[in-house]
């Protein structure tokens, strides 16, 4: 993942790592969990100043990529978020930005506000009872004037209770559309929902006859909407793969240290072949996660089918492998590993969330086979 980084990328990564270590060490994360807030808005603005919201945004709009491969920059940040078990709307904001920059002429002000961290925008696509599919949308968009009247329910909306703006997919008369809806618009009800992760939170959002004007319609034509949605899913999935990889990396490092420090029967845990072999398996899986998460992040500017494939490979592999790896880290720690006080559960929560959101391994495996069919056809 880091063998060929430029000096700028290294600096970007180390700045992010240091800022996270200083501003959200795990006791602060625990505090945020207890406070019911999830993340601090002022803190997110400082993160935006460091460039977390910049890579996907063109330079003329205040953004910019340190490597000219925006998703590679973002994957570095996501990995650090995983290592730190950091809060914040990194994934959901990036998914929304993917779409706004496609329509930058019309959404320049919002882009600037999201870029600066001033405004939080949340990706609102999942619906109760539905998986990730781009067609799995029951929320309706009935034409009204040059805009739409929106009704329906979304769930698993990350940072839904912190966001000012929601990017909502809906079923229009001619196919899928995407619109922006202010979280405080009449007819919008946001209800925080229980989420396994203590600081990465979700909400359920219901829309009852919410009227949006033409200026809030991001995607109106079915083909374009589907493509935009696909890009959003890919960005969220790729960043989640990178984040889960970072989380697993940190947990594994913690566990290897423990294996050297902990003695039983007068020997280090690290001297038992049964445990060494498990560590070797995990190290191999982890390097495979790093390889595939990095490959996915770097696949974004190529052929769309290859991009989709690389993302689903990474998300399915990392999602399938990393939670089991974390569970084994708990096992190797023994009883201390299943206590609230130990940090491991924070990471286990994070990677379990990462497995489930933005496409389960099973969903992404089916997507891979669909792509194989497409190549054959």
């Amino acid at each position, binding site marked *: *993942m*880091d*063998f*060929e980084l430029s000096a700028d990328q290294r600096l970007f990564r180390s700045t992010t790592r240091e800022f996270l270590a200083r501003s959200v060490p795990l006791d602060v994360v625990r505090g945020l969990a207890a406070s019911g807030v999830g993340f601090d808005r002022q803190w997110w603005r400082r993160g935006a100043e460091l460039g977390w919201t910049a890579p996907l945004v063109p330079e003329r709009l205040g953004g910019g990529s340190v490597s000219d491969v925006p998703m590679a920059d973002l994957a570095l940040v996501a990995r650090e978020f995983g290592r730190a078990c950091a809060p914040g709307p990194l994934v959901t904001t990036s998914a929304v930005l993917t779409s706004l920059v496609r329509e930058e002429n019309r959404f320049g002000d919002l882009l600037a506000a999201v870029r600066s961290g001033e405004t939080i925008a949340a990706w609102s696509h999942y619906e109760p009872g539905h998986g990730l599919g781009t067609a799995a949308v029951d929320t309706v968009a009935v034409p009204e004037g040059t805009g739409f009247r929106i009704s329906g329910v979304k769930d698993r909306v990350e940072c839904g209770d912190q966001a000012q703006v929601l990017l909502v997919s809906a079923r229009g008369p001619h196919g899928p559309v995407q619109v922006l809806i202010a979280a405080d618009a009449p007819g919008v009800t946001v209800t925080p929902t229980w989420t396994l992760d203590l600081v990465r939170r979700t909400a359920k959002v219901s829309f009852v006859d919410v009227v949006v004007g033409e200026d809030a319609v991001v995607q109106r034509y079915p083909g374009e909407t589907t493509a935009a949605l696909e890009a959003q899913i890919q960005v969220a999935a790729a960043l989640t793969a990178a984040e889960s990889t970072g989380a697993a990396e940190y947990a594994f490092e913690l566990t*290897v240290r423990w*294996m*050297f420090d902990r003695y039983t029967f007068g020997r*280090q845990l*690290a*001297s038992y*072949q049964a445990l*060494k*072999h498990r*560590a*070797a*398996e995990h*190290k*191999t899986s982890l*390097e*495979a996660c*790093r*390889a*595939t998460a*990095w*490959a996915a992040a770097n696949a974004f500017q190529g052929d769309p089918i290859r991009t989709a*494939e*690389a993302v*689903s*490979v990474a998300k*399915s*592999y990392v999602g*399938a492998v990393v939670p089991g790896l974390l569970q084994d880290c708990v096992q190797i720690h023994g009883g201390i590993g299943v206590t609230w006080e130990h940090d491991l559960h924070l990471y286990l929560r994070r990677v379990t969330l990462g497995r489930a959101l933005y496409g389960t*391994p*099973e969903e*992404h*495996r*089916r*997507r*891979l*086979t*669909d792509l*194989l069919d497409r190549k*054959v056809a």
Partner: protein
Amino acid sequence: MTEPITADLEPVDEFRVRARRWLSDNLTPAPPDQHGETGKSEASWQRAKQLQRLLYDGGFAGICYPKEYGGLGLTPEHQRVFSEESRAYEMPLALNIPTLTICAPTILDMGSEEQKRTHLPAVLRGEELLVQFLSEPRGGSDLAGLTTRAERRGDSWILNGAKIWSSGAYAADYGLCLARTDWTVPKHAGLTMFLVPVHAPGVTVTRITQVDGSREFCQEFFDDVVLPADAVLGEVDGGWETTNRQLFHERTAVGGASPYASGVQTHSGRDVSGLVELARRTGQLDDLRVREDLGEARALNMVHDQLIGHITRGVGAGAFVPAAGSMVRLFSARNAWLQADMAVRIAGAAAVTGADADDAGSGQAGQDYLLRQAWSLAGGSTEMARNIISERVLGMPREAAADRGLPFDQVEHGR
């Protein structure tokens, strides 16, 4: 392994275009079902040699071998590109392991100038096949505990003992044979590597039938085989150093990451088209569970390739110790298991029954399953790979050994 990249090397993109054109003009499409070990015949060895010769004459043999020994002197990146481009064509895959990717690179690393000039061009022209004489019937993973002996007689060496698990030895010309030359020192210190002509007087090769009915594995017996002094590869009593290079190349090759291969080995399941076809034939291509299995198999193949690139770059950049290659080896075994398991899951009853007594049909999936463990045993067991990863990559304490530091003639031996 790699030469410094200089400005006068052909750019990779141009090389790719040239290779693509040449391959399409000169080679035939890959046969549909390629099994690494089953179904090798005299004709298939001859075909592999012909194909290698074709590559040599076309200027595409030994991409990473130095020019002075018949290669092209290009980079692993050129090799990777050529492997990609050649995937769709019939390639001399039978020559890769062990000739092109293990034995010849060991000669390149450790051989005398004369040995390199004698053997490497012959290998690259497809004229010479090499084999490894390492494992012994009583040896298992304790390779350095071997008891095949070579004794000095005047300017010659007299070889006695037995070796086993050498694939395709019956078709080979030379074996890289590790023998004990000093019994009074600890086990690693008294070993010497020899280049043994397979058809020399005193060498007997017998074939071993494997669980799937194939007969590629061989056992060799050495009875007073006379070797000249220049048969030593590396230093006398320095055989372990030569072996280490050889094992490094073996792990790299078995993991699928060797820069010395002619084409990509498909046996470890790099391509899922066979599984897709199996699902189609058994009418299950629309089954959701089967589609998830296919996707998983596809994902693991891609991750395998990505891991190879990641580890290769990491070792190149000094971020990993070379022993990190064992992670690729371990992963490739996992992948081979998964592909074999998926085939059995998809084929269902068709994996274990056929239309008539002789018809394996989809039962190939069942046959392959019998040989599932081969890829976690060949090239060193995965238990050894796990030891290497935990001890050399993660720095964990070494396993205890009762023979460490002990002169070999004082070491306890079982039966």
